[in-house]
């Protein structure tokens, strides 16, 4: 117990734990729906777009987070609207985000040649959760809590629309609108997670915990809670590992714990196959 108190008395660690837990819970909840809706590729696209958004803001000389959130939300909503007409087209998404990433390379060069450092680019790509300032932590926690609230508000209709879109539409749910709102929320989550594990690695935080939860239970509400729990566990476990083995960067440890729990669940439930169609209510 005293070891925990000692740990948290370090300001950088307590900030990382506060922001990290909230971000992880939000990502776990959002990720569960991503996996149910088979939209992991959209999150992949957003994770690369996040890099360009942050670097564009830096190149323009404004707060990195402004560009991050704006670009992620807009691109997320765009994917949803493109896909709403005739099923999400991976090829269209792929073309768009490959180009956006090329733009990111341009902004990286512009920013590095102006400011003379390339460190920021790498920390956007791979995160630096131990480097959060206290005001950054407050903002990250506030946005994270807002995100959790928003996803809980739309959870019931979204779950219905994710499991059986046609029936949900017939029952009068605004399925298209839900899809757009959801991907905009994914955009916010991508912006949040970029601050914790970096834009290139946030996909792991969005995919590993829910994939584990889907393996472990048929029940959607249990799965949702489980996913948030596993995500928080990966975050705290990863932070702890990196605290003691300082040569391991926290982003790596967090992802390693998350991936590890998925592998364990895989071994534990070898013969059971779950996807959205098998859910029991």
């Amino acid at each position, binding site marked *: 117990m005293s070891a925990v108190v000692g740990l948290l008395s370090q300001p950088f660690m307590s900030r990382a734990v506060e922001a990290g837990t909230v971000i992880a819970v939000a990502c776990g909840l959002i990720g569960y729906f991503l996996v149910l*809706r088979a939209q992991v590729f959209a999150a*992949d696209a957003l994770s690369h777009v996040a890099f360009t958004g942050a670097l564009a803001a830096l190149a323009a000389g404004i707060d990195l987070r402004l560009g991050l959130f704006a670009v992620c939300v807009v691109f997320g909503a765009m994917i949803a609207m493109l896909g709403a007409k005739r099923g999400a087209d991976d090829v269209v998404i792929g073309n768009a985000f490959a*180009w956006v990433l090329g733009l990111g390379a341009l902004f990286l*060069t512009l920013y590095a040649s102006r400011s003379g450092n390339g460190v920021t680019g790498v920390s956007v790509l791979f995160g630096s959760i131990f480097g959060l300032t206290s005001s950054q932590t407050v903002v990250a926690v506030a946005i994270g809590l807002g995100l959790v609230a928003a996803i809980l508000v739309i959870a019931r209709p979204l779950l219905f629309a994710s499991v059986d879109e046609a029936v949900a539409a017939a029952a009068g749910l605004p399925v298209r609108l839900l899809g757009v709102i959801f991907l905009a929320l994914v955009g916010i989550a991508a912006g949040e997670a970029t601050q914790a594990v970096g834009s290139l690695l946030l996909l792991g935080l969005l995919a590993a915990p829910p994939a584990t939860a889907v393996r472990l239970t048929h029940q959607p509400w249990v799965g949702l809670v489980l996913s948030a729990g596993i995500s928080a566990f990966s975050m705290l476990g990863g932070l702890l590992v990196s605290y003691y083995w300082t040569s391991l960067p926290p982003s790596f440890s967090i992802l390693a714990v998350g991936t590890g729990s998925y592998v364990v669940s895989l071994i534990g439930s070898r013969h059971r196959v779950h996807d959205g169609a098998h859910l029991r209510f």
Partner: protein
Amino acid sequence: MTLLLASASGTQLSWNFWSDIRQLFAYHFMINALEAASIAAVLAGVAGWCMVLRRQTFVGHTLSVVAFPGAAGATWVGISPLWGYFGFCLAAAMTIAGGARRDGGRGSSEESAVTGILQAFALACGFLFVVLYKGFLNETQSLLFGTFLGITDSQVLVLAVVAMLVLGSLAALGRRLFFASVDPVAAAAQGVPTRLVGLLFLASLGLAVAEVSQITGALLVFALLVMPASAAQRLSARPGMGLLLSIIFALIVVWVGLGISYFSTYPTGFWITSIGFAGYLAAVGGRSLVDRRARSVRHSGAAA
């Protein structure tokens, strides 16, 4: 137009187009870069065309980012990055193929989650290797975003040999791969081993990606795989014609991209993706224009 843009950022670009072209071939490193990029473009054109046909863009993207931990790991251990590129990309291809569903079905929600987990974890490992190796920051960025400087003669040779291997194996799969991609159920009923075909295809894609990413960087290989191929498939549904167009587009993209970035201070990856995306948009626009005209002709014919 693009050349005009480049001249604004201004190196030794003159108004004489031919002397500019001759300048491109003046240095040995540039010739090596052009040769390597041409080999990579042909490979990306063919492998990308199959990837788009099979709707495996997410898998293709995951294989391409795996090149980063491969190269970073090899640098950390102190062996040639080539081993890392090929080893990691092949291993990832096998992992994804092993996790694929038995009936060859696509789009299962768990399969895409596994692909995502693999991708993020691979990148995390890449970051770990970079940190453990302690500071090759500029190299990190060139691994991710590509560089065309310093490609050696022996590298070009290795690229050529591997390209032959990949193109050979894709040609050997040929008709079966096409059949299994277009209609997996019917192909399986006809006795085509769709699972094995899928596995061999992913292995070839992994090799191709490992090769192309040495030129474009791990984050931008995907652009070269998806852009020319999807533009080609918009323009032609016939496999022979589509493949040819895909190769031609890929070659144009890398040649023009390298040419511009020789004179420009902006990164190669930016030019290559921008030209590729412009080509894709042009193909989409051209296609819908042709379709609309065909429809209006049909309508006016019906009215008369």
